[in-house]
């Protein structure tokens, strides 16, 4: 049976359309993907992201263990800082993309729902003799994201800590209704915003309080169109065990000189190998959507494959991300995409498709 977040019954009672996502029964939309998308771009939207995996680490071996499986450098993080990076296999393929949190008293990691069990197993396999206590808190806690230009303002006073006092990619332990919570200035929409983690018992109260403040509930459908416009990769689409961080355009999250870590030797070779397909953005001329798996062609030959595509509601345009041969990756390169047997004109554009005004 599918896993359910503590907000599951609320979603169903409020008319959400539910879908299976990575083994969880999750809301894909409440009203309309475009409406929910637009709320996030123009004001603020609220997402149940309790399906994301939440792991916490204590003990002297926590940092060495994280360093061993994380491509970015956790050792240079300040207390309360959050850092994006990858977990790679020994061949340099991406096992997951994760956020690492540094607390004064330990560490935490947020991983993709689809990879939670795989990563827990990978950590157990990698921890050797390190003195680490890892806890998987996913099923006992609730995580929500409030995203949009009004997110910080609308959340003022909800928790003891104010997200407005946090720098981007910083977080703090705080309290909600007297109970411990975490407030984090992070997100997956291309907008400013915050994420809040709280124990399951207060999940519904927090959710309803946020809605009462005028924040619109949004499903995974809008989360996907928002992240796509912002060109954020999604595991299972842009990222997989067969794709390495350099292909994905994530070289900035790989610190080869930080010391030994899993995948480093393979990654060092891959960094200097320019022959592999690269992630690019494609803008289509027409309105049809190039979905995952559609072939990208130039001069009648296959040069790549679409990893995800949608109609970007903010851009009012059909957009896609694809992996293409390196000689076709330059911005401005023209190609066609085979969408169910019909060829649609497209060209390579700079990523992200959408960037908020700061």
């Amino acid at each position, binding site marked *: 049976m599918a896993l359910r977040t503590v907000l599951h019954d609320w979603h169903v009672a409020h008319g959400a359309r539910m879908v299976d996502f990575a083994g969880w029964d999750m809301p*894909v*939309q409440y009203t309309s993907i*475009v409406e929910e998308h637009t709320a996030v771009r123009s004001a603020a939207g609220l997402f149940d992201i309790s399906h994301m995996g939440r792991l916490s680490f204590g003990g002297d071996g926590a940092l060495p263990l994280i360093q061993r499986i994380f491509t970015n450098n956790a050792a240079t993080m300040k207390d309360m800082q959050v850092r994006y990076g990858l977990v790679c296999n020994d061949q340099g393929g991406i096992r997951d993309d994760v956020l690492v949190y540094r607390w004064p008293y330990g560490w935490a990691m947020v991983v993709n729902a689809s990879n939670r069990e795989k990563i827990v197993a990978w950590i157990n396999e990698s921890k050797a003799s390190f003195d680490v206590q890892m806890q998987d808190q996913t099923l006992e806690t609730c995580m929500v994201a409030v995203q949009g230009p009004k997110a910080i303002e609308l959340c003022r006073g909800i928790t003891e800590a104010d997200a407005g006092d946090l720098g981007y990619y910083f977080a703090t332990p705080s309290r909600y209704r007297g109970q411990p919570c975490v407030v984090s200035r992070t997100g997956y929409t291309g907008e400013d915003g915050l994420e809040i983690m709280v124990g399951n018992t207060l999940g519904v109260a927090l959710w309803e309080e946020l809605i009462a403040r005028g924040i619109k509930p949004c499903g995974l459908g809008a989360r996907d169109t928002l992240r796509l416009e912002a060109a954020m990769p999604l595991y299972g689409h842009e990222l997989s065990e067969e794709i390495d961080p350099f292909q994905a355009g994530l070289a900035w999250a790989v610190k080869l000189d930080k010391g030994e870590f899993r995948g480093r030797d393979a990654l060092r070779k891959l960094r200097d190998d320019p022959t592999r397909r690269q992630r690019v953005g494609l803008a289509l001329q027409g309105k049809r959507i190039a979905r995952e798996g559609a072939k990208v062609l130039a001069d009648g030959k296959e040069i790549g494959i679409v990893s995800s595509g949608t*109609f970007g*509601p903010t851009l009012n345009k059909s957009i896609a991300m694809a992996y293409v041969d390196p000689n076709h990756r330059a911005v401005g390169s023209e190609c066609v995409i085979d969408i*169910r047997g019909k060829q649609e004109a497209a060209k390579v554009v700079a990523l992200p498709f959408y960037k908020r005004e700061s």
Partner: protein
Amino acid sequence: MDLKKLRFAPTHEWALMEGDTCTVGITQFAVEQLTDVVYIELPDVGDNVFAGDSFGEIESVKAVSDLYSPVNGEVIAINTALVNDPTPVSKDPYGKGWMIKIKAEPGSKLDKMMTQEQYEKQISSGG
């Protein structure tokens, strides 16, 4: 539009037969399921269509679906307004959102399609 005059396909198209002209669109239920329609592809006037075969497609942010013809015949008109802006399909699926008109083959009948009552029963039993 009097829905009692329409006939319905299990794939959520509606059809209206007037003489030998069959007008086709999609139902309110289909529109509600799709939401966020971004694009509609229709055949050209003069194309032949066949009962049960796809004559076009409707694309929403979530997914793309084929549109199925209820009869054999020749396309005699398409609702060109929808190609630029599919909004009428969502706003008025039985009126301004009509899609194509087919000159049906002699003897074509819609009697294998559902009545409004039968169609509503299908929807309420899970679509």
